[in-house]
C-alpha cells in the first residue's frame, strides 16, 4: 500500500486569553493536489485542532473572506493550491498591516470605516425622483469604471501596501479605488463631495505608487491605476477652482 503523502502547514497561533506573543504551530496534512490551503486549514480544524480560528465562506474567490499571508504573500487561501508549494512547508499567517484578533483572524473594523469614508454609493440630487425611469448608461460609460467595481474587499491590497503599514490614517487601495469607481460612474453626481475626502494627504496623495496592491489583487481591480487616475482628476478639480468663476468649477459627476 502506497504511503500517504503529506505536507506541513505552519500556522500562526495567537489566543489573546493566554498568549502575549504569537507562535507558529506545525501540522502534517494529507497532500491532495486538488486541495487549496483553505482545505488544509479546514482539515486541521476538523480533524486535529478545533481551536484553530480562521475566516472563510464561499471557497470560490468571491466572498473575499479567506485572505491570509501564505509564505509571506497576501493570497486568497481558497485559490492557493498546495501543489504550488509541495513538498515544502507552507507558512500561513493573518494578513499583515491589520491587528490580529485570534490566530488567522484580523480586525476589519478600520478597513470598513475607510470604505465608508469615500461614500461608496451613487450620489444624486434627484435620488428620490423615479418618475424619469432608470438612469441609462452606454457600454462605453460602463467600461470607464467596471474594472474598479470588481473588488471583493478581501484586503489583500492593504497587506501588500507599505504605506498602509506605516500610516494608520491612509485610506488605502481598496477604498480609494472604490471612490474612483463612483467618481467615474456616469450616473453619479457626487464627485466633488467625494473628492473632498479623497484629496486629503491621508487619502490618495499618501499613495507612493509602489503598485503591489494591483499585483496581489485576485480580481484584477488595479487599485494603483485607479489612485493615479484619481490624483489626476483631483488635480483638475483643484486648479478649476482658480480658473473658473465661483461655483462653476465644481464638477458634479462623471456624467453630469
Amino acid at each position, binding site marked *: 500500500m502506497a504511503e500517504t503523502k503529506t505536507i506541513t502547514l505552519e500556522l500562526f497561533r*495567537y489566543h*489573546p*486569553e*493566554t*498568549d*502575549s*506573543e*504569537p507562535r507558529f504551530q506545525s501540522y502534517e496534512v494529507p497532500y491532495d493536489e486538488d486541495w487549496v490551503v483553505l482545505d488544509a486549514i479546514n482539515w486541521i480544524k476538523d480533524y486535529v485542532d478545533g481551536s484553530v480560528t480562521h475566516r472563510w465562506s464561499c471557497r470560490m474567490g468571491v466572498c473575499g473572506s479567506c485572505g491570509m499571508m501564505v509564505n*509571506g504573500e497576501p493570497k486568497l487561501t481558497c485559490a492557493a493550491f498546495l501543489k504550488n508549494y509541495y513538498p515544502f512547508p507552507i507558512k500561513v499567517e493573518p494578513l*499583515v*498591516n491589520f*491587528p*490580529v*484578533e485570534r490566530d488567522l483572524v484580523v*480586525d476589519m473594523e478600520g478597513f470598513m470605516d475607510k470604505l465608508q469614508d469615500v461614500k461608496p454609493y451613487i450620489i444624486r440630487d434627484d435620488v428620490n425622483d423615479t418618475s424619469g425611469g432608470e438612469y441609462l448608461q*452606454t*457600454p*462605453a460609460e*460602463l*467600461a*470607464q469604471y467596471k474594472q474598479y467595481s470588481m473588488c471583493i474587499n478581501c484586503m489583500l491590497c492593504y497587506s501588500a501596501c*507599505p504605506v498602509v*503599514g*506605516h500610516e494608520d490614517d491612509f485610506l488605502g487601495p481598496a477604498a480609494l479605488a472604490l471612490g474612483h469607481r463612483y467618481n467615474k460612474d456616469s450616473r453619479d453626481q457626487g464627485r466633488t463631495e467625494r473628492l473632498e475626502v479623497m484629496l486629503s494627504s491621508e487619502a490618495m496623495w499618501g499613495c*507612493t*505608487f*509602489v*503598485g*503591489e496592491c*494591483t*499585483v496581489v489583487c485576485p480580481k484584477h481591480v*488595479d487599485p*494603483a*491605476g485607479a489612485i*493615479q*487616475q484619481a*490624483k*489626476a482628476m483631483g488635480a483638475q478639480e483643484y486648479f478649476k477652482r482658480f480658473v473658473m468663476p465661483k461655483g462653476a468649477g465644481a464638477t458634479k459627476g462623471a456624467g453630469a
Partner: protein
Amino acid sequence: MSGGQYHRPHRRAWFMERPAYIRFMIREVTSFFMAAYLIVLIVTLAKVGGGEAAAAEWLQALSTTGWKVAHAVALAATVWHTITFFAAVPQAMPIYIGEDRLPAPIAKIVMGYGPWLTATAVILWGVLR
C-alpha cells in the same frame, strides 16, 4: 497573559521584505540622480549664458573622469526612471476607444516611447546636422 489584539511591530527595513519594494526604492532613488543632473544642466545653461569663455571653462571642468562617471550614472538612472514611468502610463492614463481600453503595450508606445524617441531624434538631428 495578554487579552487584547496583537499588533505586529513596525518593520524599519520594510523595503527589504519583497523584491517589488526594492524595485520601488530603486525607482525612487533614481529621482535623486535626475535632480542632481538637472542642477548641473541649469548651471551649464547659466555658464553658456555667461559667455564663451565661461562656458569653455565649465565644460573643461566637466571633462574629468569623476564628472564623466557622474554623468554615466545619471544617464543610467534617468533611463531606468523613464522606463518605470512609461510602464505606469497605461495604468495612470488609460485610453478608451468606445468601450475598449487601449492595450498597455500599445499605450506605452503611443504615450511614452513614441514621443520620447521622436523628441530624441529631433534633438539629435538638430545637434548633429
